[in-house]
């Protein structure tokens, strides 16, 4: 029983780290641009494909390919921001959040469908990071999953360091708290928006590249992570990076343990996703702004 619990927990943490990675990107975008990015799951999907083609076309080994995928995802997200989102910054635009929803939603549909044409409809899978499974007593976990979790954790740690200890990170933090203040102290807000969207895209893309050997790539693979990311961001508190990380890991863990221990084993996996939403509902009942939520959305 202990073995069973351990392995389910280990797998839950792996999934949780990936969730956290996707969700932190989403929360950063929200904290800076104040829009919900409905195309976030598609940035995750595109990142996965970028990694795949970097490996198959350029012969880059799988691990460095994740870094390359993040860089390409960053550039791709910046291009999207420059091309589609700059109207958000013009003082004359009304109903900015509506615009944000519509444009990112439309982008999501576009990307999903263009991916079918460009990448083909059949699932693709890049080579494993490392073949085989780690076996420790009753614990079996594939090396790919370990790499995904380890890589994800490393990225998150670097992100936190970046946000707290570097000038750019502080600048992002500043803009998320007060756009006005930031501009009067010499920070170019628009440049920060561009950077934030790029960073969010890089995080999502990195997650996609990390999980590709585990789950395979398909043009519609962003649909479920999209919903999960929203749940996590709200659970953790809108705009809270640490909240997203903790909520992401918690959600992955609890979903897995739910399936593992639900008294009705026959129906467990059908309701795994619904379980996340249920947890969110419960948390919001007692803490309406999320676990680490504040009244204002600001990055921390």
């Amino acid at each position, binding site marked *: 029983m202990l073995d069973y619990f351990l392995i389910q927990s280990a797998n839950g943490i792996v999934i949780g780290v990936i969730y956290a990675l996707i969700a932190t990107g989403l929360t950063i975008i929200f904290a800076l641009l104040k829009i919900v990015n409905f195309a976030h799951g598609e940035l995750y999907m595109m990142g996965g494909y970028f990694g795949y083609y970097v490996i198959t076309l350029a012969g880059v080994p799988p691990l460095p390919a994740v870094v390359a995928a993040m860089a390409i995802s960053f550039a791709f997200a910046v291009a999207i921001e420059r091309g589609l989102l700059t109207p958000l910054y013009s003082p004359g635009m009304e109903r900015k959040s509506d615009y944000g929803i519509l444009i990112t939603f439309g982008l999501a549909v576009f990307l999903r469908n263009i991916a*079918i044409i460009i990448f083909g409809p*059949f*699932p693709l899978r890049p080579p494993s990071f490392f073949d085989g499974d780690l076996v420790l007593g009753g614990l079996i976990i594939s090396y790919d999953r370990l790499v995904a979790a380890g890589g994800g954790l490393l990225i998150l740690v670097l992100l936190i360091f970046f946000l707290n200890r570097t000038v750019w990170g502080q600048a992002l933090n500043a803009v998320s708290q007060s756009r006005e203040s930031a501009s009067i102290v010499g920070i170019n807000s628009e440049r920060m928006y561009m950077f934030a969207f790029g960073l969010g895209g890089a995080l999502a893309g990195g997650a996609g590249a990390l999980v590709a050997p585990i*789950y395979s790539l398909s*043009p*519609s693979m962003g649909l*479920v992570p999209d919903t999960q990311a929203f749940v996590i961001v709200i659970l953790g508190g809108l705009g809270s990076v640490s909240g997203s990380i903790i909520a992401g890991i918690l959600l992955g863990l609890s979903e897995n343990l739910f399936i593992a221990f639900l008294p009705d084993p026959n129906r467990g996996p*059908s309701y795994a996703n619904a379980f996340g939403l249920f947890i969110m509902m419960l948390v919001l009942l007692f803490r309406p702004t999320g676990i680490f939520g504040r009244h204002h959305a600001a990055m921390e």
Partner: protein
Amino acid sequence: MTGEHTKRGSSGINGKRALPRRDVLALASAGAAATLPVFGRPARAAEPVKLGWVGPLSPPGGYAEGLLMKYASAMAADDINKQGGVLGRPIEILYQDTRGMAAEGTAAAERLCVQDKVAAIFGEFHSSVALAEMEVVHKYNVPFLACDVWSQEVTAKGYPQVFRNSITFPLLDVMIGDWIVAAGFKNAALLCEQDDIGLAWRKGVADVLTAHKTPFQLYTADPQATDFTAQVLRLKANNPPFDLFLVLYGEAGAYPMTRESHSLGFAPTANTALFVSGGEAVDPTFWKNVGKAGLWLICENVGLPKSAWNDKTKAFVAAFNAKYKTDPPGSAMEAYDAVWNLAEAIKNSGSTAPEAIIHGLETLHWVGTRGLYTYSTSKDPAWAYHQYMDAPESILQYNAQDQSSFDAPIVWPKKYATVPYLYKKPTA
């Protein structure tokens, strides 16, 4: 007047004139030529016979299979048109993306029936969508030849417009259930998608196993899920242990499920067999996605087994491979044959009117890439009505990595089997 002027057929004072014999012969030849069936001469620029294709081309539908079915349909139209079209008219297919959603299916069928006024509709891939499309074709009395939709409801409803050229769950389930019993499995885990189709499929197999008193457990999973580790672990820990893991999962999730199941040492292993139903195991990127987890995996094939291929099958497979660089799955063959079925029905009945096409299909006796096509008119059982009862189906088990589904050993039914065993336990 000389004979050269007879073509104008000018009349005399009385308005009547006997035609010279040469003219009669000329006219008779022209008339005879006009009545020749036009297979055998290139189609002229006559008004096309419009057929409507429905199927998933984008998410959340099974767009991968839908695309292959669309390719095959286009190939069929080309082939027919190269031979002169039907009734002197070219076939033109109008494609509608139904995205795996019933509401889209309804809208697509409406467009095809009302706006495009097609002579017939064919295709689909998702039973739930076909059930919606059926209501529309029934309302407008447009023949509908359903491909690769397995729910028995499609034909059991008894709509005269509706035909099916693929297998249906009763046929499939009986085959799978019989195989499970014959192969001697003692405890099966059945996992299916949590939707109508998954549940209908599961019921059929469960009924067979119950009748034979073979123990089994039923499980469901979200169709959009991609992580099955928790579930697989739970199954692995089951007591008594399962010796068969039977999965119906029509989505991309089947691949990670297969890999996880293998990676966690559950199935396929010497202790537990893995059967993945639903078509993923014969799709082009199967091996790329599952790698060594696919070795010893069992699945069904709804195309004609290679050993039974006729010239048409060979020609189609070769042409499809040349054009699309991949083997056509059974569903693609169904789509290809469907266009031909409809063309034949139109040709035999001499008309594109709905009743003519329906009659043409009911009386069809034509060999396609999947064998001889006939459609039952019996209503006992209800799903037999307008069903291609001899739809080929077989069970194969891969015994080499990267093996083509065409070359994999067929273990069941006996009439197609290429190996003496029913199931081979994986060797270490």
